[in-house]
């Protein structure tokens, strides 16, 4: 909807701020990669930062923050629920890790 989008169009300043934050968070991720953490801890930290970056992209670059709430409620919970359901088997990877002979 062009009229709706125009009334909430991202200002250049806000766009640049979001872009700068995305670069900073990427820098933090690269820095974290060079600190010796276990794979599990790294996975949690990196995915946490990536989720923040994804939320910034969806909210501002993809304009979701300025759309009608019904659209957000249709898209986001469906993604979260199905992705969480896909992750149900994930703890099995830790069981498998402890079963390995090495």
């Amino acid at each position, binding site marked *: *909807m*062009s*009229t*709706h*989008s*125009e009334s909430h*169009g*991202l200002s*250049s300043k806000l*766009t*640049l701020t979001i*872009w700068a934050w*995305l*670069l900073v968070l*990427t820098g933090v*991720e*690269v820095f*974290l*990669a*060079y600190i*010796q953490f276990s*794979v*599990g801890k*790294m*996975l949690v930290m*990196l*995915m946490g*930062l*990536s989720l923040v*970056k*994804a939320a910034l*992209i*969806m909210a501002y*670059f*993809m*304009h979701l923050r300025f*759309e*009608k709430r*019904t*659209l957000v409620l*249709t*898209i986001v919970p*469906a*993604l979260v629920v*199905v*992705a969480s359901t*896909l*992750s149900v*088997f*994930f703890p*099995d*990877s*830790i069981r*498998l*890790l402890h079963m*390995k002979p*090495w």
Partner: protein
Amino acid sequence: MANVHAEELRMTEWDGGVLPYSVGHKKLGMWLFIVSDALTFSALLIGYSYLRVSTPNWPTPFHLWPSIAFSSVMTFCLLSSSLTMVLGVNAAQRNDRAGTIKWILLTIVGGVAFMGLHLKEWFNLFHEGITLISNPWGVPQFGATFFGITGLHMFHVFTGVLYLAGMAVGVSRGKYGAEHVEVCGLYWHFVDLVWMFVFPLIYLLSVKMH
């Protein structure tokens, strides 16, 4: 709401006339495609993470130079191309045709730079003997997951560049308006969004420690 006829707005919801989400049909269609594609990548990345955590001898071959430096610059290229895409959408909404084309072309430059760097990285790995089915450093799943996931993402970048090029031509001919550019932008931002997960999972979790 230039593309929605007043007739449609007068129709009831059961006749498909009103817009319950207050967005045009093209934009809603793109969002639904993005949800389905996001779940495809989610399944691949969760499957990869499962293998990564459960395999203690997973190779960690990526040195700061060239792999991590290359992939960080690739991330910069994609993030910057998202920035130019937002500026392109803003220009389209102002009916600034020349500005829209300029920003779309800069977005294409970002996408092509990403693909060029990625191909260079792929050929470095081919040179070291890593393919879809083999990996001289240990578990063969490393090559399968690396090329499978980055390959699917690269395909999305490639189709995104084609989509952007078509959009630039369409805008220059006056065929496409602001809504078309915005929908194209949604796809491009999604490609960027997926890389925000691929980069840490594939590259940063396989960094070579000194």
